């Protein structure tokens, strides 16, 4: 799995034309071999996948052939289209490309087109496109839905997709792949160029770039950039007491602060926005030197984030505490230390973060991993070894989403009438849809045309109609408008703005968090302590606060990535082999030795389940190592099954490593309890009620165009959307359980927040290999998860708890006794 990408024999590269050779020479530079190789591929009309680390001149390599072609044969019209996952990146590339083009005196129009582009400019861009256009997948989809798309793109020579490793997976990748398939129909001559960091599965990206969706497509050449120096990864061995549990690593922040003081500029990565807020607060509490330390995460106001990025680019900051909001983005050559607070969760992600430090290839990037608890020490060690061995994590390839396909079908109908056969063939040229069954295509087509229900009562309200040649076209301009307003595959959880009283907006919190606030509550947001005043006009209104006490920290849905499968394997291997324990901090070594004495180490090729009584309850702890999402699902299913078996389960808690369930009666038959058949009826039943599945359905329904993000002229709060999506989910499940939207929902449930796919693999793997240890008390390895009980604020699970236990019973228990009818005013 870690074999290098197949290197095609290097092509003889023709010499650079004069202005280019001169430009390199004037700077004392020589073009990198991979830059020349990219040019040779272009000369032969081949598509190319460039895999190179950051700092290798990837962007120039991607654009060089286009610049040369335009210098040698100047012409009007769109020549090269560049697609990046971030608007900011498109803007940055614009700057980085315009400078050399001017220095070489190339007469070129290079422009961006994103959601921020003014309307007049967009209109002009359609009439007279620039030679090089820099855009995002969403803006490309929008452009392709215009009736003049064919005219805009017919002369296109190259499509460059940047950060392909980040874009190709997931629904944005599906949307872009479908867009590229359409581009190939409009401009068959256009070659594709993918720029990527080192990846687990280069063949997947080759297939993605291929116009046939095939990895063995000889027309896609793989070009490997020189790899940079080995990163230097260090794990912080704290002088403080290493905590048993928790994720904030507050104990180590003094030591982190010292490192920040010693380094020039430091990026402090954390895993969640809540962690970011707390780590930022704590660093400022320690910040006796008044170092400029900033905060960056996805819920802060855009202007605030831009200010931080600009200050960083200008070298005015010593540190930024950031979430994945800075995983991708503009290069900052000046970063010389990356700190990862909390578990890295995956090798690829850690490498991506490491790549944010020191963009000079020849110097190693420096990273400090800060484990927040004992299990995280193991995980950090596993990640460090993974980085050294360059074994990357891979998302298992998944089929393209049917909801995205439905959106694309409507978009292409907006562009003009299509023939279903030809369109189906075009779609199968996109790698995620290569195996798309005709029946699924037809279902999506009918979903778009009239809802696609077995009960065909909506025939007369069709959104798509067929003309006399059988071609499909959109039924009216209102549908086109609605498509454009709802375009895109990112569906955010409903949020509310956070605003200072009479002042500016600080960012957004999920509505769910806002609902839990009572006037007078304090909470930490945007690095400030705020006092909640109330909700007004869809905003959370607050004032700054100085008071002490226990402020809340907003929790966000999906804030955490689960532990990667590959990292989990390394941790398991490490646990089983005491020889690997050398070099662990003493506290960790002792903890593991105690576990071996009291119980047994979890085996690599099986599942250890411990059971023990504690505080009048029977505990069951399973060492699955499948990540918290899969464990949450497992918890739901186990408690259902235990309920049926009369064991009276009371609750469960899941971490990335283990799951603990407690009940009134002990479970004895582990083989039966963990039998794979729980993925049958139990799962179906749970899916009917799970709020995670309801949320998944809502996202699918929004992307597929069943539910609108916002009705024209009607303010709809996110809450109302959730509500009606729930009702629709119930009705649809009952009346048409096989509807294409429910199939798409189930496909999504295999990954993501429910991670059923991973759970299913684990249950299969451990059949007949369950090692059950009956203990008289808690084992050392089980202590961390028990400490999480009651402490974890788990969004999805807690909501499900309420549903599953019966919300009403909880209401009885938690609030005033039911109103005495006799006391009602009469």
């Amino acid at each position: 799995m870690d074999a290098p990408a197949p290197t095609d024999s290097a092509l003889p590269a023709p010499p650079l034309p004069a202005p280019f050779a001169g430009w390199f020479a004037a700077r004392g530079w020589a073009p990198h071999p991979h830059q020349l190789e990219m040019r040779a591929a272009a000369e032969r009309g081949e598509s190319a996948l460039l895999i190179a680390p950051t700092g290798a001149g990837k962007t120039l390599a991607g654009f060089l052939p286009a610049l040369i072609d335009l210098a040698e044969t100047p012409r009007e019209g769109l020549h090269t289209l560049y697609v990046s996952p971030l608007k900011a990146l498109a803007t940055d590339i614009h700057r980085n490309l315009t400078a050399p083009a001017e220095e070489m005196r190339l007469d070129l129009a290079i422009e961006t087109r994103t959601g921020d582009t003014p309307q007049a400019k967009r209109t002009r861009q359609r009439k007279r496109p620039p030679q090089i256009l820099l855009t995002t997948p969403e803006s490309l989809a929008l452009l392709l839905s215009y009736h003049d798309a064919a005219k805009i793109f017919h002369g296109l020579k190259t499509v460059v997709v940047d950060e392909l490793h980040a874009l190709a997976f997931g629904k944005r990748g599906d949307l872009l792949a479908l867009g590229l398939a359409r581009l190939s129909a409009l401009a068959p001559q256009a070659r594709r160029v993918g720029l990527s960091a080192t990846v687990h599965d280069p063949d997947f990206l080759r297939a993605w770039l291929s116009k046939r969706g095939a990895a063995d497509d000889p027309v896609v050449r793989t070009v490997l950039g020189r790899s940079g120096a080995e990163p230097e990864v260090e794990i912080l061995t704290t002088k403080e007491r290493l905590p048993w549990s928790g994720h904030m690593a507050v104990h180590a922040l003094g030591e982190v602060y010292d490192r920040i003081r010693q380094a020039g500029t430091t990026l402090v990565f954390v895993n969640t926005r809540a962690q970011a807020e707390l780590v930022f607060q704590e660093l400022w509490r320690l910040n006796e030197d008044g170092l400029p330390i900033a905060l960056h995460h996805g819920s802060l106001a855009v202007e605030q984030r831009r200010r931080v990025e600009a200050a960083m680019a200008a070298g005015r900051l010593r540190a930024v505490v950031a979430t994945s909001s800075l995983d991708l983005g503009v290069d900052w050559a000046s970063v010389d230390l990356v700190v990862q607070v909390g578990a890295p969760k995956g090798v690829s992600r850690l490498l991506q973060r490491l790549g944010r430090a020191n963009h000079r290839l020849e110097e190693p990037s420096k990273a400090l991993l800060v484990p927040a608890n004992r299990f995280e020490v193991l995980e950090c060690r596993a990640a460090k070894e993974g980085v050294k061995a360059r074994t990357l994590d891979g998302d298992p390839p998944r089929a393209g989403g049917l909801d995205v396909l439905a959106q694309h079908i409507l978009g292409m109908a907006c562009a003009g009438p299509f023939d279903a056969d030809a369109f189906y063939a075009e779609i199968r040229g996109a790698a995620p849809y290569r195996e798309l069954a005709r029946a699924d295509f037809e279902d999506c087509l009918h979903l778009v045309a009239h809802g696609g229900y077995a009960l065909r009562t909506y025939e007369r309200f069709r959104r798509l109609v067929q003309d006399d040649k059988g071609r499909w076209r959109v039924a009216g301009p209102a549908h086109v408008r609605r498509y454009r307003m709802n375009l895109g595959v990112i569906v955010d959880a409903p949020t509310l703005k956070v605003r200072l009283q009479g002042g500016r907006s600080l960012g957004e919190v999920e509505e769910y968090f806002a609902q839990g606030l009572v006037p007078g509550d304090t909470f930490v947001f945007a690095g400030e302590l705020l006092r909640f005043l109330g909700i007004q006009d869809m905003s959370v209104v607050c004032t700054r606060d100085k008071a002490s006490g226990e402020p809340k920290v907003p929790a966000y849905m999906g804030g955490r990535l689960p532990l990667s499968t590959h990292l989990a394997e390394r941790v398991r291997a490490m646990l089983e082999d005491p020889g690997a324990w050398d070099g662990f901090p003493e506290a960790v070594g002792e903890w593991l030795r105690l576990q071996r004495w009291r119980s047994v180490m979890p085996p690599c090729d099986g599942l250890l389940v411990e059971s023990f009584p504690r505080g009048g309850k029977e505990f069951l702890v399973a060492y699955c190592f499948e990540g918290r999402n899969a464990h949450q699902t497992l918890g739901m299913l186990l408690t259902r099954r235990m309920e049926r078996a009369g064991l009276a389960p009371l609750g469960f808690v899941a971490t990335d490593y283990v799951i603990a369930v407690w009940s009134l009666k002990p479970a004895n038959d582990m083989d039966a309890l963990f039998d794979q058949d729980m993925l049958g009826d139990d799962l179906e039943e749970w899916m009917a009620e799970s709020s995670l599945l309801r949320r998944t359905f809502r996202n699918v329904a929004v992307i597929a165009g069943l539910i609108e993000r916002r009705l024209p002229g009607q303010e709809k709060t996110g809450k109302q959307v959730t509500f009606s999506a729930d009702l629709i989910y119930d009705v649809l499940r009952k009346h048409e359980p096989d509807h294409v939207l429910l199939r798409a929902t189930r496909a999504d449930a295999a990954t993501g927040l429910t991670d059923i796919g991973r759970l299913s693999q684990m249950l299969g793997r451990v059949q007949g290999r369950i090692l059950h240890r009956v203990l008289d008390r808690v084992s050392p390895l089980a202590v961390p998860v028990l400490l999480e009980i009651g402490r974890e604020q788990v969004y999805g699970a807690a909501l499900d708890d309420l549903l599953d236990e019966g919300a009403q019973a909880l209401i009885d228990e938690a609030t005033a006794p039911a109103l005495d009818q006799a006391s009602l005013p009469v």
Partner: protein
Amino acid sequence: MPDGPMIPHAAAPLRVNGQSLVPDLSGALWWPARRTLMVADLHLEKGSSFAARGQFLPPYDTAATLARLEAAVARWRPERLIALGDSFHDRAAAQRICTADRARIRALTGCLEWVWIAGNHDPEPPADLGGAVHEELTLDGLVFRHEAEPVRPCGELSGHFHPKASVRVRGRRVSARCFVTDGQRLILPSFGAYTGGLDVLDPAIAGLFPRGFSVHMLGRRKLVAFPATALG
């Protein structure tokens, strides 16, 4: 006690203007003394109304609503049913109802005394589905109308607002549709399959109950009562 089956669907009776009324888990209200069942805001054919604009909500809402209505009727065996307005989502809704659902409505209206109160969505409920149409109706000190009138609260039973309420449990908020009453008037929850709701603390609802009110929330398995002061 209610003159009806003792089943967990019903909560203890409450009193409005001296009459004893039983809230049903489905969102219907049972008046034992007159063997009358009330429902509000069926919004039949809401799905097809959206479909006409190109938003294809599943076309099963009318069937789902009717099934729940049939179950409530089977449970209480009323002699009279009063639908408190907005029974049809729009003026053209009745024409869109499919043949099968149309037959089910006729069967319902044919087996008991059926009253359609006119609502703002259906000021003229269809004449060809059986039942009698009234702007409002008065029986034994109870007044049945679609929308509550601010100044005449005594014994008024109405719908229109689709009330729902929220309580905080373990720091979370749980919302559900609910009945709202202050002992003088009562507002029923919406009965229709796709109908959203308005929080009872909104001034549009709370303003109708200046002396305070209580709610009966429709849970998954039972009804639970709360005073307004427990909501939030």
